[in-house]
């Protein structure tokens, strides 16, 4: 028992907790539970709800369009996680190894953390525009036909680059902090033994900062699934032909373009289960592989 727990008035405790509990219940738990309930109905904007049982889920399982969206989401999130973490690790290591001006580089690199996703989407839409993009003519000089408004894989890559660019700063914040905590003596030992830089990064630092890396894998996965909505909406609207139609965008369209609330709810339940499983899996993995100092 901690000696901090000096207050014992249960009524007081209840009253002070009330705002958090009420908001959590009304705006977090209730909508989630209701999504489960709503997913069993055919529900639209104006007409009454009709109970249809598992019909919506059956529709999901047999929809090739939806399965494609699942595949694209997973692929997209995986690419975001790998891309962001590889780039951020290189940058963080670079900043870590620099002697003077670390702080300056850090601020110059982490600011996209504060960048609104909508702005990231619009700026990339502009600079990578197939017709008026500033680099388009240069890239086309290499024999690549830049046309991501109609070329699916190209659209996927462009949105991916925007997404990675926006998220690198967030990762650098955590990685430089973690690298800063690595004991100096380890670095010295490695240097005296003539261990090369890259080897030192991969063999010494990465294992030690692995708890941070696991945390970042979770955060980046969630970002890949949800945080990129604005970019998809502003850049490709899920197209061309569904090439960037990640689950959250698909869900948005089902609900607010086709007003199929029941069907959309089934989709949000699937998303909820997927995110839950992902987080659970990663917490389990973090126990097994993460190095917790010592």
């Amino acid at each position: 028992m901690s000696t901090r727990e000096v207050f014992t008035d249960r009524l007081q405790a209840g009253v002070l907790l009330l705002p958090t509990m009420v908001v959590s219940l009304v705006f977090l738990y209730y909508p989630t539970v209701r999504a489960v309930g709503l997913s069993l109905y055919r529900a639209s904007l104006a007409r009454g709800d009709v109970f249809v049982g598992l019909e919506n889920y059956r529709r999901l399982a047999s929809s090739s369009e939806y399965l494609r969206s699942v595949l694209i989401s997973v692929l997209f999130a995986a690419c975001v996680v790998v891309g962001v973490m590889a780039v951020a690790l290189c940058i963080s290591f670079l900043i870590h190894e620099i002697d003077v001006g670390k702080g300056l580089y850090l601020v110059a690199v982490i600011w996209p953390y504060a960048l609104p996703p909508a702005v990231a989407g619009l700026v990339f839409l502009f600079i990578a525009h197939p017709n008026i993009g500033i680099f388009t003519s240069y890239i086309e000089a290499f024999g690549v036909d830049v046309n991501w408004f109609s070329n699916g894989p190209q659209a996927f890559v462009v949105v991916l680059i925007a997404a990675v660019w926006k998220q690198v700063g967030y990762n650098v914040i955590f990685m430089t902090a973690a690298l800063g905590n690595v004991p100096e003596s380890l670095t010295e030992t490695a240097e005296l033994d003539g261990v090369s830089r890259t080897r030192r990064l991969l063999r010494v630092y990465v294992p030690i900062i692995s708890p941070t890396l696991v945390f970042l894998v979770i955060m980046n996965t969630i970002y890949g699934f949800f945080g990129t909505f604005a970019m998809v909406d502003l850049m490709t609207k899920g197209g061309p032909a569904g090439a960037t139609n990640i689950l959250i965008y698909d869900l948005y369209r089902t609900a607010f373009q086709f007003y199929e609330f029941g069907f959309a709810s089934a989709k949000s339940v699937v998303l909820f289960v997927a995110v839950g499983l992902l987080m659970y899996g990663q917490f389990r993995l973090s126990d097994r592989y993460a190095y917790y100092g010592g």
Partner: protein
Amino acid sequence: MLGSLLTALTAAAEPSRSAGRTTSERIRRFETEQLTLHVLAATIVFLIILPVLIAALVSTKRAGIVTSIGDLAPGGHALSNYRRALIGLEFWRFMLNSFLMSVAVVVGKLVVSLLAALVIVYYRFPYKNAVFLFILFTLLLPVPVRFVPLYRLTTELGMSNTFFAITVPYLASATTVFILRQHFLSIPASLVETAKVDGVGPLRFLWSVLVPMSRAVLVGVSVIMFVYTWNQYLWPLVIINAESLQVAQVGLSLLRGQASTGEVAWSMVMTGSMLTLLPPLALLVLFRRQLLETFTIQQK
């Protein structure tokens, strides 16, 4: 663990040991290495800044069409562009809405989370762990997963197109409660014991002891919450239809359509983008120290 790591390290050691070199040789090598690192870092910084730099330049030009690097010279229309976006196209309204929304959410979340963290750290009551888990579990329920029923609920309450809709659902924050809890746990327990002996009540203790002792964390948390709220896009897009109530993130695409009917006026869109980026960026630069400190707590 450490032992095996060192063994692996020694085994991985390269044959050419730096100990064999002369001192001046090592210093020279060290200097060229640092120079290389600086060149690399500067290049990366430039690449990361580049897109926004281009946007900033375009926001100073009359026509926003820039098809080659040669077109990038800054134009002389910065003032008129920003004035047209803010006043002519009424972007100030979106900015104001975003600002009010973010401030309301930050203040509300701070108060609500401070109270919850106070109870979780300084009160003894049954099912405490269950309550904490109940709060933490909400991390699994981000807005995008529940926005369909949330939309229905808000509409049924008659709250769509209101300030209520874009603030109240954000008030509970597991992250904030968690960060504050971690911070409170690092404050010596003797403080609260003394306070209790002196007959200081919990709210008084929170206000006169905890809050002053948590200044850096509170600032850091506020910046994180402000950036998070300011950058919201999906929920305002869904729940706000009245243009006069819309926030900057969604207003940007309205700007895109409004600036000119036929062709997109890119300089206007980039001007709007720069305006929307400014508040969170300013906060990040101003409070970077507190922000980094808070992130360090979050990680633990």
